[in-house]
């Protein structure tokens, strides 16, 4: 099996990584490029101290392990270590430009699920960790529309270590692809849920444009965000309405701050 160490093997379907990715519960993971793993520079700091059975695990990931010679216990621990190591490499890979590209594809397919918040209109989510250290917190899902984080629906996904995705990933993605930032309001060409909403909100609805990102300013996008307002027999509830108004004031404060900043920058550019 030593001849496989060139990294040129094309027996794709039999590689450990493709097996790992096809395993149920691992749908969130992207495929880390073989040559990314083989470049030792990218593995800086990952060694026997971090990962037990490091070199065997690495060999397993890159399909260079002759596991016939191992007994079951060792094989099992190597297998566990390999998953752990793959996760740690994955966290690094997905913030590279190749990795971001691959994760963007998965995001487009909504592989990470959709936001449960009603007013996010089934916005696709992105995985995010709450810690970069393994064994701290499970993976969460970041919604770029409401900018909040949610727990995965399925327990299979709820137990994946958040460190395999890292705290940085979704925010790096939108730094690199700002055109992918969704608008805050109701999407254009909307689904049945949105139609429902239109019938509910007829008359109150502001004109919703497409995502206000691109070359356009994002300062005031939050104005379009919809919120739930509890009502009892049609009347607003005092305390909830008060809090909603306070939040509106906070929102408008941020918009004013950002727009003032924009004007300032506009002047210096002139």
């Amino acid at each position: 099996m030593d001849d496989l160490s060139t990294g040129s093997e094309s027996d794709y379907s039999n590689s450990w990584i493709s097996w790992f990715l096809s395993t149920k519960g691992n749908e969130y993971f992207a495929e880390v490029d073989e040559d990314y793993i083989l470049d030792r520079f990218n593995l800086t700091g990952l060694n026997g101290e971090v990962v037990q059975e490091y070199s065997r695990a690495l060999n397993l990931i890159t399909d260079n392990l002759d596991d016939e010679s191992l007994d079951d216990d060792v094989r099992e621990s190597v297998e566990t270590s390999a998953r752990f190591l793959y996760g740690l490499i994955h966290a690094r890979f997905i913030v590279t430009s190749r990795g971001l590209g691959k994760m963007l594809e998965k995001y487009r397919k909504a592989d990470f699920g959709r936001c449960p918040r009603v007013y996010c209109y089934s916005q696709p989510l992105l995985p995010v960790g709450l810690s970069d250290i393994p064994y701290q917190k499970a993976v969460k899902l970041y919604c770029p529309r409401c900018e909040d984080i949610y727990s995965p629906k399925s327990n299979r996904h709820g137990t994946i270590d958040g460190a395999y995705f890292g705290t940085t990933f979704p925010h790096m993605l939108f730094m690199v692809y700002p055109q992918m930032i969704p608008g805050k309001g109701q999407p254009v060409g909307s689904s049945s849920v949105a139609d429902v909403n239109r019938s509910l909100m007829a008359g109150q609805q502001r004109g919703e444009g497409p995502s206000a990102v691109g070359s356009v300013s994002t300062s005031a996008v939050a104005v379009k965000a919809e919120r739930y307002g509890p009502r009892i027999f049609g009347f607003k509830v005092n305390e909830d309405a008060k809090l909603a108004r306070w939040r509106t004031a906070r929102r408008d404060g941020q918009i004013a701050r950002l727009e003032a900043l924009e004007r300032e920058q506009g002047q210096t550019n002139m």
Partner: protein
Amino acid sequence: MSHLAAPELDPDELEEEAFDSSSQASSTQTSTLTWINWYTSLPGHDYFCEVHEEFIEDDFNLTGLQAMVPFWKEALEMVLDVEPEEDSSKIPDVSIVESSAELLYGLVHQRFILTKTGLSCMVEKYEAGHFGACPRVFCHATPVLPCGRADMPGIDTVKLYCPNCGDIYTPPSSKYSGVDGAFFGTTFAPLFFQTYPELHAAPFFATNPPSTAPAHSSSMPVGGPTFTNPDPHGGQKPALGRVYVPRIYGFKVSERARSGPRMKWMRERPERWDELDNVDWKGRWKDGSTTGDKGMEDEDEDMQQGEVKRGALFDDEDEAEEDEEEEEEEEDAPTQAAATTTMAGSANESRGGGAVHAVKTSVGAGLSGPPGPTGRR
């Protein structure tokens, strides 16, 4: 369904009938289970509570529903397990009556759960966690309550209201996608929490100073067990007020970035209850400022002084740190530089456990070296 012969009776007699049929439950297989029992036990119907038959039998409670439900009489008979009359030949198909019965039950349910009995029925289900938990991470699985966005049937499916974040969510399972939101109605969830304010979060959230914050301060009553909301009609439960802060390599994403945070306000709460009154009815600060009152700015400065320490703690990303996320202003460059230094230093400090120590080193390596965004082309 009951096999007792039950011609049209007035409500009182019907009640007797119902009682009779339940007392003879063992005599026939079908009479052990009323239609309501059966319907509420179907998969996806676990949000419903059992409407008391006396409530349905009272015509007053059905006012106005007759016009909305086709095959009214047959549907009502089905719901109440009354044997249909002889001349039922005009009904083309029993499944039509079935769907009418479901509609009838749903609409009566909407009214029933607003009554005292209905509310207490639902609070039992709520406290038993029958409606699930809020998917939002910082609501820490607060139980949710079903609600509708419309009172007319056929407009929208049932949603779930979280009394902590005050937002509504789609049920996690598609088995609820057939349940009409009107069967719960728009009024129920807010009225429920007006009735049981101790189950609803207060609108303010006092951030404890991180040094004195106990490990689980977010789940503890703020200011000790004597937590009270000055508004007796408002939520009496201490809010779980943590708000997510996006970070890249430990640094907050600035709101000045085009992809920076824009929605933090939606989850924020004031520190104190009376700050809510600083805003007028149109949602503007009463003092005419644009970015909030002076008290806020003072807090921000205090927060910024704590930044260096926060940077050192970023690995530990936990309650102590997240408790104070009221910050608005961006960190300035010198503070960031200081934070980096501290961070890199802390990465080399041992924390005892071998694995943790080792990984800390790797995180440090990640920050100072290769696996950044430019690591690989």
